[in-house]
């Protein structure tokens, strides 16, 4: 397959859309299970088409721009956000052959993209010119910046351990030993991922009961869908990164690589859903305290530990 | 407990009081001494005010009544302090500096009956819509047909 076909069909757009529809469906089903109710049921077999129906419903909605809003920025932001997270996914190897691009700076680019997300979301909040959106935007900046430092430090720990930034090489070098050595880095990475992508219990910027929907408040219809989708893709991309760096990526016995990759991602998703069903949201100051006083020092220590290990093995 | 209060109210303020139900005391006060009376009651342990209840007796040829219902939360006793106000002079001193939590109740009573609580810092409409200010809907003279929102 040529790179264009790859980008459009298999590890690219269509495949990912399908994955997200499924992720959304599974999330709703699992949450429903935790809530002791049924969840999506009527549309399609076992309600499988419910998410698709919701997407079409959102597509039909009116394109509303608030009167005070900065119109250009307001309508542009969702697409910028989408483009950026799409770049993030392009560097993730789903199997030894199915990836869109692979360079020697894969990890660096992926992390750089994640780091440049907060201004986008802040502008989304600022351009809506609404109070709740504005507060949501401020919260995003606050939270993401404090989450990104442990994210970087733990991801770099893996890079230091493998001595490369290329995803494929990292996966090929991984083993049980690397999994055990990088386990603390993995845990920090997952926590930081939840913070950076504002998933519960760190969904402070979108805290529905506090700031309505944060920077998403004024968005509706197609714009809203794209923005939410890009947040979902960001989570997917970061989980893909976690699987690649710490869980041995597409490696696994018997089954093809892509299945192993998706299985590992699914396990991570399961963890997120269960956390979402049972953990209340924490407060901003508690989060900042946690990030700067616990997570970042731990990530630094972990990096030192990895360097130490590297020195022993070298 | 209530007997003591009854005697003291009689001797200090000269107010008549009568037992009301099993554990309540009904004190007939007047508006000149209402603040002193409530302060005295607060010192005697009646520290948990329930509400201010206004009764419009005008169709019966009587006056307005303002009832302050206050509980002694330790000893589980009630007093109801009753002040009678003539229809053409509906003013009573506010007691919100003695019982701050009665302030919104007074505000509601003002809004619904037009009883002016002198000294209450916030007599604004609370429950009613703004256009209905001054219609005093809980008065007996309120007419549903007359007091309607004007159509534009």
């Amino acid at each position, binding site marked *: 397959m040529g790179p264009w076909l790859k980008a459009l069909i298999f590890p690219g757009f269509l495949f990912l859309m399908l994955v997200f529809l499924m992720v959304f469906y599974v999330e709703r089903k699992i949450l429903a299970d935790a809530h002791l109710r049924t969840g999506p049921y009527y549309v399609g077999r076992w309600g499988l088409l419910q998410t698709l129906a919701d997407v079409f419903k959102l597509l039909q909605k009116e394109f509303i721009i608030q009167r*005070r809003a900065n119109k250009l920025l307001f309508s542009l932001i969702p697409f910028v956000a989408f483009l950026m997270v799409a770049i993030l996914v392009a560097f993730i190897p789903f199997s030894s052959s199915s990836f869109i691009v692979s360079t020697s700076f894969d990890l660096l680019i992926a992390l750089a993209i994640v780091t440049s997300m907060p201004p986008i979301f802040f502008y989304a909040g600022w351009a809506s010119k609404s*109070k709740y959106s504005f507060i949501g935007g401020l919260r995003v900046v606050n939270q993401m910046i404090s989450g990104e430092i442990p994210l970087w430090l733990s991801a770099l720990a893996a890079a230091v351990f493998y001595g490369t930034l290329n995803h494929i090489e990292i996966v090929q070098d991984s083993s049980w030993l690397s999994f055990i050595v990088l386990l603390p880095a993995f845990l920090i990475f997952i926590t930081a991922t939840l913070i950076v992508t504002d998933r519960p219990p760190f969904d402070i910027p979108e*805290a529905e009961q*506090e700031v309505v929907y944060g920077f998403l408040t004024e968005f509706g219809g197609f714009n809203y869908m794209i923005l939410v989708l890009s947040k979902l893709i960001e989570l997917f991309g970061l989980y893909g990164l976690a699987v690649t760096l710490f869980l041995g990526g597409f490696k696994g016995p018997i089954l093809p690589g892509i299945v192993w990759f998706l299985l590992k991602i699914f396990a991570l998703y399961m963890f997120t859903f269960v956390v979402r069903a049972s953990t*209340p949201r924490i407060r901003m100051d508690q989060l900042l305290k946690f990030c700067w006083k616990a997570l970042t020092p731990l990530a630094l220590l972990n990096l030192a530990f990895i360097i130490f290990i590297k020195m022993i093995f070298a | 407990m209530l007997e003591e209060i009854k005697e003291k109210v009689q001797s200090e303020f000269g107010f008549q009081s009568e037992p009301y139900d099993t554990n309540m005391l009904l004190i007939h006060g007047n508006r000149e001494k209402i603040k002193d009376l409530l302060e005295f009651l607060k010192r005697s342990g009646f520290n948990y*005010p329930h509400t201010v209840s206004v009764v419009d007796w005008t169709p019966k040829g009587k006056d307005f009544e303002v009832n302050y219902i206050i509980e002694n939360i330790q000893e589980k006793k009630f007093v109801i302090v009753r002040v009678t106000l003539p229809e053409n002079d509906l003013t009573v001193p506010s007691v919100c500096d003695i019982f701050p939590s009665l302030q919104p109740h007074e505000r509601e009573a003002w809004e619904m009956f037009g009883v002016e609580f002198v000294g209450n810092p916030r007599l604004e409409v609370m*429950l009613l819509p703004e256009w209905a200010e001054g219609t005093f809907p809980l008065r007996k003279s309120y007419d549903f047909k007359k007091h309607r929102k004007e159509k534009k």
Partner: protein
Amino acid sequence: MDSIAQAGFTFVLEEKKEISGEDLGLLQEKLLQLNWGVQHPASGPMRLKVWVDGDEVVKVDPDIGYVLRLLEKLVEYRTWINAIVNVERACFMDNFGTMTGYSIAAEKIAGVEVPKKADYMRTILCEGGRIVSHLVGLGSFVGVLGVHTAMQWALIAREKFLDAFELYSGQRIATASIIPGGVRFEPTGKFIEKMTKAIDFLEKEFFPRYEEVFLDNPTLKLRTKGVGVVPKEKAIELGLAGPPLRASGVTSDIRKDYPYAAYGELDFNVVTREEGDAYARYCVIFEELKESAKIIRQAIEGFPEGEYRTKFPVKVPPGEAYVNVEWARGCFGFHLISDGGTGPYRLKMGAPSFANLWAIPEMMKGIKLADVPVIFASLYMCHGDIDR
């Protein structure tokens, strides 16, 4: 005391300047006024004007009246028995408590003695109503922290009780089943059976599951402990009512203090907590559920035989009564006045949520914006009850 009179209830209006969208960039110099409600996911039909300085709440002013129905006026146009329809709508969550209070007040004026069976039936219904209301209270408290699981679990347990009410009165929410002179329908064995089943479900399935996940939840404790602390003296001064008052360590429960219906003959505890914070209020609500279940079991055990209602006169002699009942959300006072007519001359409803609401400006001073919904939900208010 002066502090409250000057600053809490007396709202200073000097900063009336509102910030429009264009000025958001200059935020650091101004206070931002947030309209927390009317259309807000956690506010319900009321508005809190919240002035924030960054993330800190400077002051709060409730704006209420969005569900005003003027029930006190409507009651004056009803007959003694019809009036329950208006009285129960003070809040649909626990309609039995308000109806019981009104009925007792009417019976006191008329001098009617209700049969023992009616008293027991009222007790069962009141406690059922309390359970139904507390379940929603628990669910919405966890709900404002972003977890909807608790609400769903609570609603499942609530459904069993609603089924029992439906079997008894034909309605699930507004049952209109307690009238002056007794209860409106003969309590059948089927109702008792259904109620027992609901209690069984609550005690055997709901409590253990809920306790494990949402009572010992470390994140929940982190979030709610030490938030909105009201010491004992302050609680009395602010006029808090119901579970929030008891969570501050004040032993005040009308069921125990001035027993009505069959409460005098049953054995139960008044749940109190000393801490006075949001978590304590949450715990009080949960513990009261257990007590209510206990009361219903006892009442069903000692359920007497006999008539379930007596005749209530059409015209009631002139007189008045002030009756308090321990409603789900606190002490509900009924000042009922009769002029000798066929209906109430005046009914004043002293609503507990109204008292709790006006403690908000004082409690929400200097907190973080994220604590606004927590304190709001922990005060356990009902909007229908605030506005009446």
